[in-house]
């Protein structure tokens, strides 16, 4: 739609903001994860098929059932604003791995896009108790809102470009990466810290338990899967404009080829059984990337381990890929469901799979459910794969779906 306006009224020429094609590339990653902090520990744990799921230790859980989760140690875990601290720690690692010093950049060209579903929820819990007891409020109330973790990162890196929190429930992290790619393409930013961050607290564990959506162990796509196990942490990527990265000689880990999002428009908590929203979101991402389904060589599935999600997702992937056998995994058996951070972790995973040629196994998966049997699920041990194009899909409450397609640099 670029070019001179042809609408009614006085002629006001409105050419596109950027005339040259701009490509988003990933030049750095950072993670705070239950498998360990820093990208190397995260990757080694995934590749080895380890699971960080264990009984909850950090807060009172004797009245929670189930009471298992994948908790983070370190990485800012002692900060009352855990989501903000996780995001900041991951962002700093991402910048370091990209060899970027934001102080040397034009602040108006630096942006932040983060997903979260809980933000400063633990401060909120403390504030609620204090308010009910008519006690003095806790410190840092400004870190309660969902926009606070992104604002905290923005302040730390002096970003004065767009600073946005994506709110697509468990697809928030994926949409943050998508938003970053859109900003780079449209010329709104040259460098975007994009990802997601979430925390474990009583609020969320009790809530998922009330929905009977949880289990002691996460077994994505397994015949005996009973539900999801919650996790926490943050994953942040540096999404950078390709020419900007080239000018400074940065190493490019992967390209963001395409993104897509779609609503189910069916139910607030249950997924569309036919996977309609996932099919539309992935279809949009593939169209945006201008690649056919047959070009996709790895899928990082949402794979929560709930009976409905995994069956729906299997149906959607089979609708999309048909008989073409594409390797699929889920990392939620390893780090739990990290909610607003999940899609960001999976984007980091996709970039690493492309770079390393190795697909980690699906921890927790022992016997594939016949409903998911058409998928080429990687389980047991890591599989060597030459992956040039990878897809990550995420779905969440309120029928939110988002997908990103990454490609080899």
């Amino acid at each position: 739609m670029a070019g001179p306006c042809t609408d009614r009224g006085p002629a006001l020429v409105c050419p596109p903001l950027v005339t040259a094609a701009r490509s988003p590339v990933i030049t750095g990653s950072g993670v705070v994860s239950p498998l360990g902090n820093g990208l190397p520990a995260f990757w080694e744990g995934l590749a080895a098929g380890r699971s960080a799921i264990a009984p909850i230790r950090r807060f009172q859980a004797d009245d929670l059932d189930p009471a298992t989760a994948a908790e983070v140690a370190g990485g800012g875990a002692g900060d009352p604003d855990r989501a903000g601290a996780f995001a900041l720690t991951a962002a700093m690692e991402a910048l370091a791995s990209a060899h970027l010093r934001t102080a040397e950049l034009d602040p108006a060209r630096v942006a932040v896009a983060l997903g979260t579903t809980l933000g400063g929820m633990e401060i909120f819990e403390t504030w609620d108790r204090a308010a009910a007891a008519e006690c003095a409020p806790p410190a840092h109330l400004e870190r309660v809102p969902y926009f606070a973790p992104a604002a905290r990162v923005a302040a730390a890196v002096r970003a004065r470009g767009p600073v946005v929190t994506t709110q697509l429930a468990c697809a928030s992290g994926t949409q943050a990466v998508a938003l970053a790619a859109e900003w780079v393409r449209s010329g709104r930013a040259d460098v975007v810290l994009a990802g997601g961050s979430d925390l474990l607290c009583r609020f969320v564990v009790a809530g998922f338990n009330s929905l009977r959506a949880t289990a002691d162990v996460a077994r994505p796509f397994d015949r005996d899967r009973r539900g999801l196990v919650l996790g926490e942490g943050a994953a942040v990527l540096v999404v950078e404009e390709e020419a900007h990265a080239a000018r400074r000689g940065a190493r490019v880990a992967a390209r963001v080829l395409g993104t897509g999002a779609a609503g189910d428009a069916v139910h607030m908590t249950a997924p569309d059984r036919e996977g309609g929203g996932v099919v539309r979101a992935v279809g949009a991402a593939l169209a945006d990337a201008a690649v056919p389904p047959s070009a996709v060589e790895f899928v990082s599935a949402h794979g929560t381990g709930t009976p409905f999600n995994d069956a729906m997702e299997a149906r959607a992937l089979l609708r999309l890929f048909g008989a073409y056998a594409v390797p699929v995994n889920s990392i939620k058996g390893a780090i739990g469901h990290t909610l607003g951070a999940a899609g960001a972790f999976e984007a980091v995973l996709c970039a690493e799979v492309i770079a390393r040629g190795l697909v980690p196994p699906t921890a927790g998966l022992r016997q594939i459910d016949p409903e998911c049997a058409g998928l080429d699920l990687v389980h047991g041990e890591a599989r060597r794969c030459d992956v040039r194009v990878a897809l990550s899909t995420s779905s969440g409450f309120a029928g939110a779906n988002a997908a990103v397609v990454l490609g080899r640099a």
Partner: protein
Amino acid sequence: MSEVAITGTAAVLEEALEERLDALPDAVRSRALRAERVTQLALTASGGALAEAGLLAVEGEPRPDFGITLGTAFGCFLTNAAYQRRVATDGTRVASPRLFAATVSNAAAGEVGIGYRLGGPAVTLTAGAAAGLLAIGHAADAITSARARVILAGGVDATGPALARWLADGGLAVGETPVCGAAAIAVLQSTRAADGPGGGTPGKVRGYVLGYGAGFTPPGEDDGGGVLAAVSQALDHARVRPVQLARVVLEGAPSAADPSQRALRAVLGGAVPAAARPSHDHVERFAAGGPIALLAALRDATPEAPFLVLHACPSGHVAALIAMRTRPA
């Protein structure tokens, strides 16, 4: 960016919500009555905007080329508070699954999608109170890049005692300004589509920019850098010179007004009339405030004369959007 047409608009204030709920189509009203207030506001404003655009539908398959982008400052804050209070009072074993399912800020977008059969991109964004204008700008980008044919976009926030208490305890500086919930939604389409049969075009989005300044700074310490960058880039984005701006509408908390005025003077000089706060300037409507200011300006503006709506939030988020009213056919 290319221009994007606004083909329908509607705003709903909390004080008029009950009456507007009664006017909803039956299928939507039954869902709305079970929903949280922030969702009710979004449903009523979205229905009004779709009806004005001639695009209302409440049954059939989801329309894959219809999307929604909502901006909210606090989203499900009140639902979180209600859910948390019950858990704290009665214990985790009686946690409400109904309330918990609504403790996501995209619940409103999800219900609007179900109610009005939207199967395209469903995105909710948070950027302090600047999120409403941001959502309209983001949707304009999505229309320009052909991600959807029609997008409902705007801002929504609900208010209540829990939010008032949190604000008073130090959550976000709004001073003595009274607060009130609202939703304001615009239907965006490409100008080409809007010129077809039945397409009314109250206005157009010319360009937008979201910037970030210094968040939560004490009075006098905000240098206005975020506003300065956002306004200058928005002008560039819309290819509008300061002298072409017919009007500047300044939305936002009073604490952000002084640095905004200073930054505006630095960017615009004496080229435009002094920035005016909208007529509802005595009420803080959070993410609905920017879109309400936009809708009011569209109604009052001189046709084809671009104007700027600026929303600076104490959180540091700044949205600058340039639009214009379309000449009546």
